[in-house]
């Protein structure tokens, strides 16, 4: 029982990180129907920016988080403008390959500048552990979960209470109709990328602190898993991405804790295939009917 609770705690902290990345995937997919493969690499860049901010600029946790989020937001908008915008009317596969191309570009440009070796993250949060009964929660996990919750509340506010959010929802339902209603579709898409990438940047810093190591290829696996989380929750649905992230995170820690940790990636993908077969629209996704 104690081990079970401990795994839940670990799962929730890992899951909050996945949820933050999954939000970016789901928002971008909701609005332009593109699997943004480069999203995992934006997260990697976020981790490196946070690393630089803490190590060289001697910032503390929150300023570093903010810097990483702002830089990632700018990067997200640049990626969208340069690589995805020219392809908005082309085939899905062309857009997907472009996304993969951008992903490779970010990875290897980063590798060119910082080298391929794994770096250890500076210690910015204390790792004081709190004992609740026999369950151990450390300061870092607390920070991760709180940051994730704060950002998700902020996102809910943006999407449901601001004009930009309203525009985002409108464009995701029908871009042409939204444009006819006087919504600037292009800038709405840019906002979406900015917000999604900022969240990925935040996730990058949190992961750096939690796992204490970063490298230029760190974004591939968490990126794919976060996408699985987004699909599980129902792609396009923001609460779905949060639930999906937590579910995948918990599942992964359980597979590592009780089974064989070598199989945890396989478990996540097997889970994905099962969801896709049983309920392709995900937990909270809407069923779309095919029209002829």
């Amino acid at each position, binding site marked *: 029982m104690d081990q079970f609770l401990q795994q839940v705690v670990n799962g929730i902290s890992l899951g909050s990180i996945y949820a933050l990345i999954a939000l970016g995937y789901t928002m971008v997919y909701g609005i332009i*129907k593109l*699997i943004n493969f480069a999203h995992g690499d934006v997260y990697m860049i976020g981790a490196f920016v946070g690393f630089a901010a803490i190590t060289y600029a001697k910032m503390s946790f929150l300023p570093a988080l903010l810097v990483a989020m702002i830089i990632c937001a700018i990067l997200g908008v640049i990626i969208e403008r340069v*690589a995805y915008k*020219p*392809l908005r009317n*082309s*085939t*899905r*596969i*062309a*857009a*997907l*390959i*472009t996304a*993969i*191309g*951008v*992903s*490779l*570009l970010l*990875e*290897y*440009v980063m*590798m*060119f500048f910082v080298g391929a070796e794994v770096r250890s993250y500076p210690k910015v949060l204390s790792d004081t552990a709190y004992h609740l009964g026999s369950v151990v929660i450390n300061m870092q996990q607390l920070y991760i979960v709180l940051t994730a919750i704060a950002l998700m509340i902020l996102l809910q506010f943006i999407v449901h209470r601001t004009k930009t959010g309203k525009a985002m929802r409108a464009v995701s339902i029908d871009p042409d109709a939204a444009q006819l209603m006087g919504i600037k579709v292009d800038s709405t898409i840019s906002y979406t990328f900015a917000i999604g990438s900022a969240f990925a940047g935040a996730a990058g810093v949190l992961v750096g602190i939690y796992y204490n190591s970063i490298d230029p290829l760190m974004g*591939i696996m968490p990126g*794919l898993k976060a*996408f*699985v989380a987004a*699909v599980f929750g129902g792609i396009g649905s923001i609460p779905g991405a949060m639930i999906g992230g937590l579910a995948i995170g918990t599942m992964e820690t359980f597979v590592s804790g009780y089974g*064989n940790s*070598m*199989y945890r*990636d*396989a478990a*996540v*993908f*097997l889970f*994905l*295939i099962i969801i*896709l*077969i049983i309920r*392709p629209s995900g937990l909270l996704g809407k069923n779309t009917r*095919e029209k*002829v």
Partner: protein
Amino acid sequence: MMKVLTKNNLLILGVILLTFAIVQVLMSVGVITSFHEITIATICINIILAVSLNLVTGFTGQFSLGHAGFMSIGAYVCALIVMRYNSVEGFLLGTLAGALAATIVGILIGIPTLRLKGDYLAIATLGMAEIIRVVFLNLEITNGAAGLSGIPRYTNWFWMYLFVVLTIVLINNFIRSSYGRACISIREDEIAAESMGINTTKYKVMAFAIGSFFAGVAGALFASYFYFLKPNTFGFLKSIDILVIVVLGGMGSITGSVVAAILLALISTFLQSFTEIRMILYAVLLVAIMIFRPQGLMGTKEITDLFQFRKKNERIE
């Protein structure tokens, strides 16, 4: 009885034999060194992979990101067999067994996942390839992450060329048969195809099975050429590499896949001395091609289309 020995077919046969002979002579004279031979092997294996993926993605329109998974099955099965029966027969048996194993897995995976469309299918196949990789990482018989080494080398220019020609001829004939036409109709419009009485699931699984068979063959050749196998060779990036060849050449053009496989291998060899920026250039190239020429080098045209102006109207666009 169809005429097999038409003028055209004899011409094609002649070109095939001539290409083989020229490379063989250049090899024995020593113009093509063993360094070039690695490039040639890469080209041949990539052609088989790209042409078979083209059948699934380009002709049938089913977006697969898991081709490397099938390749790894072929590679491991062939390696295990050829390590036990160290002879040419063992190699051929291994290739056949590897290809059949890949086909069986392809059918088993294809039946449930091919109901999915577009991006979802892409992600499902990606997940499947990752599962295969993780399984190979953990199996005892495949020696885990360390991989298999000391696989006897039987793949040579003759076998590679033979399998490349067989792959191209068989897949080309498949596409030109009524089955192939059914596959193309699924790519063009799945709902319309279904309403015309085409069993779309059957043809999709069929294309997927043939695609996995040849991916398995390519894997077997790979295993027996490079002596050494490890699961991480067949990761997500390998599938992307194959997809890039297909898209660069043009989805729905076998000639395109062949040309792109040769072109990319040459570029890659040329950039060997600039390892650091090689992947950066590769990525930039990918994005640039998608922005400026999303239909690929050849579009859906074949090399024969370029010569046969007379039959232009018969071509399937």
